[in-house]
């Protein structure tokens, strides 16, 4: 369980005269087995909040309790080892590092090829060409993003935070990805997923949706209750097949290719 107590995060204003509040006295509890989606307008503090939980940013004040332990002053590494995982919105690239190696590091052990194949298949990547590829500029933005998500799947943390996993991913892979998130959630094995997303289909998977605006929680509710207020219903024709790539989705990704 993750508990945030009165988290505030401030940064200096560009003129250096004062501070700007990015996260404003925010308190939140995310129980085990919970699938939470954090949504809200750009600049509302979503990514900052996720980075504060991972330890990448240090809150100006407040407390972070993870599974009963105060992790506020723990390093990124210590939090990772305590079971917190974070999938970056804009993943790092590594010259010379193979995809397989990154997955091994994520898992904390040398993974069998089959396991790597499965992680990559879950994000819609055919592994034959990818495991030996380098995580560098030769990969497209969508590819490196899916590899980023695969590292979190390989790490299998107790609390996984994905920062806009849909960004840069094509519709076919996105379809596969939502299935993966649904599968993890349905396993109900004590793991919690937090996804920062603007995507209607991801939001609809959630147990609970948090609307974050100006560093504060504006609303927390079930998706069916909150979604009408988010403006999604205004687009498209309800029930229109075109809103989902159902004809094209990849239901079977070969794992031995």
């Amino acid at each position, binding site marked *: 369980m993750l508990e945030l107590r009165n988290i505030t995060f401030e940064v200096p204003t560009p003129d250096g005269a004062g501070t700007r509040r990015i996260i404003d006295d925010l308190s939140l509890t995310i129980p085990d087995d919970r699938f939470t989606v954090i949504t809200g307008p750009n600049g509302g503090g979503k990514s900052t909040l996720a980075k504060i939980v*991972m330890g990448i940013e240090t809150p100006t004040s407040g407390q972070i309790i993870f599974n009963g332990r105060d992790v506020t002053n723990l390093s990124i*590494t210590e939090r990772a080892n305590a079971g917190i*995982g974070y999938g970056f919105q804009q993943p*790092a690239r*590594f010259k*010379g590092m193979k995809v397989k*190696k990154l997955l091994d590091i994520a898992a*904390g052990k040398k993974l069998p090829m089959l396991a790597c194949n499965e992680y990559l298949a879950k994000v819609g990547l055919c592994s034959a060409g990818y495991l030996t590829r380098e995580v560098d500029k030769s990969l497209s933005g969508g590819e490196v993003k899916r590899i980023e998500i695969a*590292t979190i799947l390989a790490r299998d943390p107790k609390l996984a935070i994905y920062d806009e996993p849909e960004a840069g991913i094509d519709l076919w892979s996105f379809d596969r990805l939502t299935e993966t998130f649904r599968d993890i959630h349905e396993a109900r094995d004590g793991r919690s997923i937090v996804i920062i997303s603007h995507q209607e289909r991801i939001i609809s998977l959630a147990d609970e949706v948090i609307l974050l605006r100006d560093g504060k929680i504006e609303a927390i509710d079930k998706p069916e209750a909150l979604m009408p207020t988010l403006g999604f219903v205004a687009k498209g024709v309800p029930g229109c097949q075109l809103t989902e790539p159902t004809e094209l989705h990849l239901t079977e990704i070969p794992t031995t290719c």
Partner: protein
Amino acid sequence: MAVDLSPIDASLLQEIANIHGLPKGAFNIRKDGKLVERHSSANIEIATKTDHPGIDITIADGTRGETVYIPVIVTQSGLKDVVYNTFYIGEDCDVTIIAGCGIHNESHQASEHDGIHTFHCGKNSHVKYVEKHYGEGEGTGERILNPVTNVFQAENSVCEMELTQLRGVTSTVRDTNAELEAGAKLVLTEKLLTHDDQTATSNMKVVLKGEDSNVQVISRSVAQDNSVQVFNPLVIGESMCRGHVQCDAIIMGNAKVKAIPGIEAACEDAMLVHEAAIGKIAGDQITKLMTLGLTEEEAEQEILEDFLN
């Protein structure tokens, strides 16, 4: 000839040539300026030069799948060893050459090895050359390596050269020269890590003489502490050819890196590209690996290892 390899010798050989004891097939092991052991094979003949110190390695036409080892180790301080090794590789060969120099210096006197390697690659031959330089020892004596590599590639030959120097060499000036005839291809990969007050200079000159000749120069280096590195690769295109020079350096501490990739075209159909980048380890790389459970130091080490791969 009696073979006398101490544990230090064996360890150096393992480090530079990845061999345990004496290798199979053709080899020539040189220690402190003297021959330790030599073996020729049916297709690869190794003979002592008559005009200079060093050896001539002659590889018969059509030799395929063979490896020749010519490691050099220096354990005697105060020694300056200069050696000329010339390879005559026949036509239609496919061979691997493992070279390298390991210096173990416990003294305050300098140890130096200057290897002048010349390759004549026959038509349609494929040569893989792996050279590793390494220095060790607690002494304050300098460990100096100044290799010269000259490559002459005949038509349609392919040469892959991997030149590596990771740690321990106080000072190095490397000169690499190559000339490529029509259809020849050269892939030159250089990996370098310097630390403390070490200096390393790498000069390269590759002349693409023949049509459809092709060179790819890949330089990956890490400069730590107060070390200084200078890269000076030059590719000259004299005909319809392709050349690509890529220098990538990670700089740490108070190190200095100077990269001056050069291209010269003397033909309108020459396609030459160079790129160079020097920078510190990106913070987002370290952060990512820390989110996967590595400490900052482990993350940095991992990034460097992969970068030099």
